């Protein structure tokens, strides 16, 4: 089976716009969580979020795209621009049906959608935008990226909540193995609007803390919910031989992927994360001992932290592998999270350093070697995990090369 490598990264994260800024801030332990600025959240039980700083869409995108796109789609378009530029990849205009787009989505363009719902219910149907039909739906980012870059190959959209970013990459790899030359993948998400906030609040899993340094503490005794964030990362996945032929740099190989769904609630059966990890390892032909670092899901809900720590202990042994969750600096980005963690893992390989999990003192019961400050470490193999609400578990194994 042909190998699939990552040749381009585009990052839009709450603690850094662009891969360089994100990575500098992440290694320095500088977070991007703060009070919500995009709407007045002071009346809601949760008031903190990870917002992408300094993003002015009109500096990056043509004016005609602005009226038809939600904020999160603009972020996705810019991330895709950067990822393709980083990869040095462009479609041959008009003739090339070999480059596709597969992204993850959780909420579509719901800030745009809230405005149009308001137009509908406050003013009437004739006030709904002609762009609503495609600005909010889950396929919007894949469609807009494919149009902007003339990418006419196999495309798709995966929805599996926060597991989606990894599932999209798994799907992109399938398409390349079936003959696509390259696929733009990952995910950028975000619905930082009151309507999106209402949905987040309904999970009961948002932290109500007001101190950004104490709000999102996965694996900590004080873990009490997470902070929601926007953004993510777009990655260019490419057939390794095609990438080599054109002299492209490889950040690393997508060597293994596994997905599994949790048992029905109340069934008493074990959660499925361990099986997803084992499937990714088996898919790559890797042993647990080869894994240099794990980028954890880090739910910060005690029973979910317990389940993740138990899965890691079962596969790697207690304290058996360095574990990190740099998403403590960004919040949980829904379907944007998987792509961003993959980007972080690939940059760890490049620079031989593992980014920290900030603010967390790991609870002893988890038996985790949690990386609390940047750790110099040659990273040849990294495992990235993600879980989505309802029971979705996914794992991607990256290898240098």
């Amino acid at each position, binding site marked *: 089976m042909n190998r699939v490598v990552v040749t381009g990264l585009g990052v839009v994260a709450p603690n850094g716009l662009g891969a360089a800024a994100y990575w500098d801030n992440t290694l320095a332990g500088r977070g991007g969580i703060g009070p919500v600025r995009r709407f007045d959240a002071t009346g809601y039980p949760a008031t903190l979020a990870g917002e992408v700083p300094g993003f002015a869409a009109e500096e990056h995108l043509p004016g005609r795209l602005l009226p038809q796109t939600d904020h999160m789609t603009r972020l996705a378009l810019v991330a895709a621009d950067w990822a393709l530029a980083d990869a040095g990849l462009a479609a041959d205009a008009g003739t090339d049906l070999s480059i596709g787009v597969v992204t993850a989505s959780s909420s*579509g363009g719901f800030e745009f959608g809230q405005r149009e719902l308001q137009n509908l219910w406050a003013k009437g149907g004739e006030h709904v935008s002609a762009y609503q039909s495609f600005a909010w739906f889950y*396929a919007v980012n894949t469609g807009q990226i494919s149009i902007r870059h003339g990418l006419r*190959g196999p495309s798709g959209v995966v929805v599996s909540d926060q597991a989606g970013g990894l599932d999209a990459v798994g799907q992109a790899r399938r398409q390349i193995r079936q003959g696509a030359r390259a696929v733009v993948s990952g995910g950028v998400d975000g619905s930082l609007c009151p309507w999106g906030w209402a949905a987040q609040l309904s999970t009961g899993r948002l932290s109500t803390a007001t101190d950004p340094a104490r709000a999102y503490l996965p694996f900590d005794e004080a873990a009490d919910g997470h902070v929601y964030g926007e953004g993510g990362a777009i990655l260019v996945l490419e057939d390794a031989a095609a990438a080599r032929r054109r002299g492209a740099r490889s950040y690393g190989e997508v060597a293994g992927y596994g997905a599994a769904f949790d048992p029905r609630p109340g069934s008493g059966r074990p959660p499925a994360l361990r099986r997803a990890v084992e499937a990714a390892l088996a898919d790559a032909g890797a042993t647990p001992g080869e894994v240099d670092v794990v980028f954890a899901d880090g739910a910060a809900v005690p029973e979910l932290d317990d389940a993740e720590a138990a899965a890691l202990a079962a596969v790697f042994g207690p304290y058996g592998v360095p574990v990190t969750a740099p998403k403590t600096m960004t919040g949980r980005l829904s379907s944007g999270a998987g792509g961003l963690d993959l980007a972080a893992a690939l940059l760890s390989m490049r620079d031989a350093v593992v980014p920290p999990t900030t603010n967390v003192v790991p609870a002893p019961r988890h038996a985790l070697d949690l990386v609390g400050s940047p750790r110099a470490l040659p990273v040849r193999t990294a495992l990235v995990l993600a879980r989505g609400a309802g029971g979705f578990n996914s794992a991607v194994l990256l290898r240098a090369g």
Partner: protein
Amino acid sequence: MSRRVVVTGLGVLAPGGIGVKAFWELLCEGRTATRRITFFDASPFRSQVAAEIDFDPEAAGLGPQEVRRMDRAAQLAVVATRQAVADSGIEPAGLDPARTGVSLGSAVGATMSLDQEYRVVSDGGRDWLVDHRYAVPHLYGHFVPSSFAAEVAWQVGAEGPAAVISTGCTSGLDAVGHGAELIGEGSADVVIAGATDAPISPITVACFDAVKATTPRNDDPEHASRPFDASRNGFVLGEGAAVFVLEELQHARARGARVYAEIAGYATRSNAFHMTGLRPDGVEMAEAIRVALDRARLDPRDVDYVNAHGSGTKQNDRHETAAFKRSLGEHARRVPISSIKSMVGHSLGAIGSIELAASMLAMTHHVVPPTANLHEPDPECDLDYVPLVARPHHTDTVLSVGSGFGGFQSAVVLARPDRDAA
């Protein structure tokens, strides 16, 4: 792909009837299930017709808490799943959970619930800062439609790979294609695959009004969906779900299962042109068809029936006709082609799976469903669209295609698994 994938169970909830039997009778009789919208007062809207299902979730077997927790689209998917599993003869308790997956398509997720919940939390659109305390407790599940895949997984105890595929109006083909890939690559032996959408709600009607995609033929709702007819002027919004039990061929044979069809080939391409527009040449759909046939190791001449996207918009029907000519060559002029959207409307992400169900039933009965309301074809749509009346026709191989907002163009090829022996 050495592992082959077959369909061993069918469940359909479509306008005009619940269940496979009612669905097939409607199609064979060429009856239409389009009508004036009854779900809400549609009189302020440009398009006031839709293909609605008369669906009572409790009568269909759902419990009160399931009804409260699930959006209508999830309810339709769960009931279709139960039908499909019963039809397949599989006992869920006998499935290996880790080897059982879910791949469910939906274009617009829980639109009906979101529309209604928004109206309440915003107090009729008055407040930008909505009051979350008025929302249902499961609002997040409505936001992120992967909750639909979770509901389906819980029905059968699936613990393998699970996801919702949301590629607009090709979701129903892409979800089945993805499910087949999971089995083909060895990630699962059984996948519950299909699609659902229940979009008949003011926000959907308003947003399609705004782009004039739906028909304004409000004075004649029964004849409002007119694919390929010269007088067509937009699609009729519909709702529904179709769910299949997909099985690895040997897995199915080992238990002596009835096989409807093999998912013999699947491919998708993007037109990279416009979020709602189509280039008239049909190049990308033609490429998807070519690759799907190639993966099925079939020739265009092997196709006995084409189940068209046939939405009834001017641009779609011409685009699609061009794609058929480009991919099937001379055979495009010989093979019967029809659009069941003329009868059951366009249920967005669900319709691809509903059309696959119709295609499998065409193979079962050797009858091709008609294109209703096709009296005077558009001169640019000059193929055999099986007008008005179902046609007895030997059908072993079917091509089903879809096209949608976002530029997606998908094709699925269904065939008989024993075709090599013949």
